[in-house]
């Protein structure tokens, strides 16, 4: 068995999501190879080579992979796949975009967003917004898998010294080109890897009121998230969304403010170690999963919390 793991990066640095995929590959067993596909991204390959337990790093450095367009990237991975028993990526925007394309080209039924490896061909994943856990077995020759990063402890980032091997680019499909991006600028940690997350819901009433959460986040070194209701209401951008169809987070501390706790939201945060809920409705379902619940008006409680944290 040999595993190929697609490395998540921005051509400059490796993203932490990949460190959570490596342990899933280790659990499957066999050698692990990492694929760094990008442009001018040797630094990423060098970073990847330091992850302990990696047999080798494949580097595909070409303009076709500069922005990780699915059409070009899938073509590259499909060419490499016959050498592997398992091809894995993190359940991120890139992984979700590329891997099903790879799977279909290989005539394989992908296994999405696994939260446990039961054996080399059997995996557990959540369905129905986390209301059920399904254990599925694949008979496909190559297993194409996306891995839920929060379900696996991160591998160490340093200590290894794998060889870097250059692989030839598979060519430009000419189907798509990159126009531009608008990334949310934030000094705060990334939502999916933050140790503490504070999220607001419909109860926040406006986008401006999210600044109250920003202040608490700054005190705690936390990331700021939101429920779908808050995103739908236009308070904050979609990349804040925590839930079934947004981001899955599992921080040490999750603070839900003015969030009722719809199952779709719980699906994205209920694996957090400690959950705090602040809501004025004492019957809100969020209290059923909260370790600490505070029934209070958030417009009083949140500024008070910020004050208390300064002490």
């Amino acid at each position, binding site marked *: 068995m040999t595993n190929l793991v697609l490395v998540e990066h921005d051509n400059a640095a490796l993203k932490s999501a990949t460190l959570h995929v490596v342990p899933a590959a280790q659990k499957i067993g066999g050698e692990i190879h990492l694929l760094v596909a990008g442009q001018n991204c040797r630094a990423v390959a060098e970073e990847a080579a330091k992850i302990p337990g990696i047999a080798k790093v494949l580097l595909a450095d070409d303009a076709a992979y500069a922005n990780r367009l699915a059409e070009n990237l899938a073509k590259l991975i499909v060419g490499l796949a016959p050498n592997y028993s398992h091809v894995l990526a993190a359940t991120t925007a890139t992984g979700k975009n590329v891997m*099903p394309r790879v799977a279909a080209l290989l005539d*394989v039924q*992908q296994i999405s967003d696994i939260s446990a490896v039961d054996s080399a061909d059997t995996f557990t994943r959540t369905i129905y917004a986390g209301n059920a856990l399904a254990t*599925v077995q694949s008979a496909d020759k190559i297993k194409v898998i996306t891995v839920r990063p929060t379900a696996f402890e991160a591998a160490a980032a340093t200590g290894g010294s794998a060889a870097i091997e250059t692989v030839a680019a598979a060519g430009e499909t000419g189907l*798509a080109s990159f126009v531009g991006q608008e990334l*949310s600028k934030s000094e705060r940690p*990334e939502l999916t890897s933050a140790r503490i997350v504070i999220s607001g819901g419909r109860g926040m009433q406006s986008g401006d009121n999210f600044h109250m959460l920003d202040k608490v986040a700054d005190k705690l070194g936390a990331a700021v998230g939101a429920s779908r209701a808050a995103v739908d209401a236009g308070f904050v951008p979609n990349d804040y969304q925590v839930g079934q169809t947004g981001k899955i987070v599992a921080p*040490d501390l999750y603070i839900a403010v003015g969030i009722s706790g719809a199952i*779709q939201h719980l699906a994205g945060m209920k694996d957090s170690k400690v959950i705090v809920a602040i809501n004025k409705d004492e019957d809100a379902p969020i209290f059923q999963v909260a370790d600490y619940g505070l029934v209070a008006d958030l417009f009083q409680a949140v500024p008070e919390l910020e004050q208390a944290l300064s002490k």
Partner: protein
Amino acid sequence: MKVLVAVKRVVDYNVKVRVKADGTGVETANVKMSMNPFDEIGVEEAVRLKEGGKATEVIAVSLGPTQCAETIRTALAMGADRGIHVQTDVELQPLAVAKLLKAVVDKEQPQLCILGKQAIDDDANQTGQMLAALLGWSQATFASKLVVNGDGTANVTREVDGGLETIKVKLPLVMTTDLRLNEPRYASLPNIMKAKKKPIEALTPDALGVDPAPRLKTLKVVEPPKRKSGVKVKSVAELVDKLRNEAKVI
């Protein structure tokens, strides 16, 4: 340009699903079913393209048992022109769905296929990408904005992890919808009545030459572990104290 939208019949998003006692799946008998919410967004986008003069015809396709015809009717009531129902009682996994849709696309020759980014039952997030792969088309997943250009291309803004990304893609295209693409309309009563007269063509996987047999074997389905219920605190001061001294997370 013809637009094809795929619509899936799923357990309504408001239903709290129950795992079957024998561990074979979740209870779907006598449960409210609806169109997958992301597919509603897909139908809305297709209908808007037609209203804006960019699309000539909107075809709604659903795959599965007899009742999927109701889901197609919903799409027709929202403004789709006609339906195609690929009838089967086989459990359909994303690869099989993509193969069946490809066969329908080969027959209908649309320039644009719109699918939801994920279905809220299996949460797989695969079918659109797989369909694009099988057709050899470009793909634009998690779309929050679509602009069809005059020159056989489209610009699509996509929701990605850190914000938004815009790509330019060649038509024909498979696009999958994200939440902010649009707000789907409610079908009006006159349109619901009109939809009853719109045609739905019935096909089978056999007729399309596709073997829809599932590839993944579901060994068991169980309820996730429950969280222990916590405590209510009386004040912010008590909360901060507990977080510092009991949970030790701040």
